[in-house]
């Protein structure tokens, strides 16, 4: 498993660049990850990312966009505005959790 230095921290990543260790995540890492994919973090972005991490911790799997809407309370439309085109993957990348595996 490759490692990388992100925002001054040495972290483990997979071959796509996603963090593999939940506990290695930090806000400065997230800010840099977001910047890598052209997302500028606003307070609302943080709300989504932090919810996604909490939900992952509780459920052991990454919420799909459906769940981010119904359980997290972030409307689908807004998810697409905050994380354009591919919200599920972008949210997971920034939040340091795996890509969601559910279909819906």
């Amino acid at each position, binding site marked *: 498993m*490759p490692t*990388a230095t992100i925002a001054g921290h040495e972290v483990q990543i997979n071959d796509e*660049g996603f963090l593999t260790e939940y506990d290695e995540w930090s806000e400065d890492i997230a800010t840099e990850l977001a910047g890598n*994919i052209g997302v500028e973090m606003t307070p609302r972005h943080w709300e989504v990312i932090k919810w996604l991490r909490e939900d992952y911790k509780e459920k052991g799997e990454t919420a799909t966009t459906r769940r981010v809407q119904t359980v997290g309370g972030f409307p*689908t439309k807004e998810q697409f505005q905050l994380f354009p*085109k*591919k919200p599920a993957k*972008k949210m997971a990348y920034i939040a340091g959790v795996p890509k969601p595996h559910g279909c*819906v």
Partner: protein
Amino acid sequence: MADAIIPNFGDDEETDRKFVLICSKGNLDMAYPGLVLANAALGEGIETHLFFTFWGFDMITKSRMWDLQFSPVGNTAMHLPGRDTKMPQALSPMPGMTQMATKMMKKQIADLGIPEVPDFLDQIVAAGGHLWACRMSADMNNLTEADLRDDVDGIINASDFIEMTDGAQILFI
């Protein structure tokens, strides 16, 4: 020490990939494949259109969209729940069987956190998907735009459809 690998989300590549699903079935079980794939395509940033025709019209008709049903009739792959035992075909047309099978399937779908058909279409529209209705089906059933979901982009004819799907990947369900 390595540089961070930055995932390629493909945003910078100009893609003209366009995905069109023709939804022609009004059975509960046959409504979902199109919805699941449309939702997935939108989540990948792909322009997505759904075209509803014939029985698929029930998916967007306000008075019918909550009542799609699943019938085991003629379905030789129908098993008894959670087992490998085939359901005898003779039982399929028994009174109440469709209602029971529908109820069971709806529960299985809901248990996975997957929305009902109208809610699923809400999500697809919120994600930027487009809904189109078939002119001939509307005329055959005496339905107008007022009978359909408000977010249907329009009732279009076959030529419009051919024009719209120029260069698209089309899936008929």
